């Protein structure tokens, strides 16, 4: 393909070679998918949600398939931020792709310490997860009110010496209020959407399918909702927006860029198609060639209304 095509985007100083990022929790720490494609192809990798200490996660079953979507209730199982720094960063640094550390905590103090630890680690950006629907403490309890988001983000801001992305939950009345609170508190960027809370019931056993009873919906089923939220948030804030939710191919990704996203994340689609990320990048490039677009930044917010 043509070499004059410029896929680079810049998220608050974080330069990405292209706008496609692996979404947190769907890509582990990259090891598994590195057997399917060269991770250096990706604009960035958002790693599995990290916490100060290792977390066991929720009891299985942790997944249920619903029409054109999945519910998950993993519950932030992870080896802890220190194991990530020691064992996973050196592996990921073997590739030329931005490392985005997805961070969670139970308390504001834990969020502060996560940001401090990750600021001293070799990662390119921090994505503050204020939106996991599958844990009892922290996360959603901060992320679902503008005040809660403002408190956490303003408290952690002083510890962050690299781009701070705040990941938003769609499980709120008005996501633009939450996004504005993150911006006012000093976030460099917002990413959205995390999963939409949902559940599934097995009528034979009369039991919930998920061990955690409820979970979070992702995949194509959530795309229209995610797209609308990205559109509204992009208009409401000045900081760059990273869009996600149900993106499976380049057409979906371009829709998010047009709606105002500066980059996109892809998660669930990779389960079915391990080449989803790479095919999306190639597809965006082909679309640009076909439409004589030199820089992908021309697409961002390019919606005609």
């Amino acid at each position, binding site marked *: 393909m043509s070499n004059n095509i410029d896929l680079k985007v810049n998220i608050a100083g974080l330069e990405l070679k292209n706008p496609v990022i692996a979404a947190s*929790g*769907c*890509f*582990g720490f990259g*090891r*598994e*998918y590195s*057997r*399917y*494609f060269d991770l250096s192809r990706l604009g960035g990798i958002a790693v*599995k949600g990290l916490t100060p200490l290792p977390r*066991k*996660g929720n009891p*299985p*079953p*942790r*997944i*249920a*398939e619903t*029409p*054109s*979507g*999945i519910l*998950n209730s*993993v519950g932030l*199982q992870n080896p802890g931020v220190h194991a990530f720094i020691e064992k996973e960063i050196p592996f990921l640094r073997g590739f030329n792709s931005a490392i985005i550390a997805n961070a969670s905590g139970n308390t504001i103090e834990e969020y502060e310490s996560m940001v401090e630890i990750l600021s001293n680690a070799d990662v390119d950006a921090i994505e503050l997860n204020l939106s996991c629907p599958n844990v009892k403490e922290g996360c959603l309890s901060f992320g679902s009110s503008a005040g809660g988001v403002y408190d956490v983000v303003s408290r952690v801001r002083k510890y962050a010496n690299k781009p701070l992305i705040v990941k938003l939950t769609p499980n709120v009345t008005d996501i633009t209020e939450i996004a504005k609170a993150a911006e006012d508190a000093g976030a460099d960027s917002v990413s959205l959407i995390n999963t939409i809370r949902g559940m599934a019931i097995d009528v034979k056993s009369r039991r919930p399918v998920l061990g955690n009873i409820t979970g979070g919906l992702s*995949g*194509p089923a959530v795309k229209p909702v995610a797209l609308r939220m990205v559109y509204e948030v992009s208009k409401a804030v000045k900081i760059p927006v990273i869009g996600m939710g149900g993106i499976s191919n380049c057409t979906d990704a371009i829709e998010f860029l047009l709606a105002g996203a500066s980059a996109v994340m892809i998660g*669930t689609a*990779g*389960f*079915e198609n*391990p*080449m989803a990320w790479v095919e999306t990048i190639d597809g965006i490039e082909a679309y640009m060639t076909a439409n004589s677009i030199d820089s992908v930044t021309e697409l961002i917010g390019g919606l005609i209304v």
Partner: protein
Amino acid sequence: MNTKYKIVKAEHLNSDTFMLTVESEIISKRARSGQIVNIKCGDEGGVLLRRPISICSVDRDKGTFDIVIQIRGKGTKILSKYKAGDEIDIMGPLGQGFSLYPKHKKIIAVGGGIGIFPLLQLLKDHPAENKKVILGFRNKSCVILEEEFKQACNKLFISTDDGSYCDKGLVTDILRKELDKEPADMLFFCGPLAMMKVGVEIAKEYNIPCEVSMEQRMGCGIGACLVCVCKTKNTDDWEYTQVCKKGPVFSGDKIIFD
């Protein structure tokens, strides 16, 4: 990475079970008994996730492998419509298979329901001198692959839940009877959780090592999403471990059955 292969044979084994023979040099060469493949069902009806299926039998000379699938729901229904000549999208082989140690001279493999399928290649590949297999089916009409199993082992036992064919009763009861007659060096279990739990208890009682093949609903199938976990022991505690990557075959004493 290519994941598209050709189906060379598609055959119904009974009213709800069918076998697909797939041509793949790579998978048949790499596949170890007990490993799985993760199959895309197609774009029909919004079925998003791949379905994990055990490798049942491998023909390494011809470069083909067989999978046997029971129709359970939407995904397996779609797969049942595949015909010879169709292309199928398969990731694999995935996960850890059964251990084949030459020091295990006498083995017994115990399977129930869809859990019998991976045992066929296990029996074919295992270097043991004496291989017994105990298979449990719901009733006579569910009994499949009898001839294939007979040829792959020294002695085949079949039981049906209702006694409509061969013995009536639990495979674990037959196992106990056989162990009382003659000891074994290694046991393998694949089937319903309740059966494997009893199996592991029997193995412990008779002081025989064993392996179990676990089942869990999956997402990515390769270890990246952490949805397919089972509870396992570690040095001083327990953890949730990915069935797709660290299993599906685990040492029986590692699993915590709650």
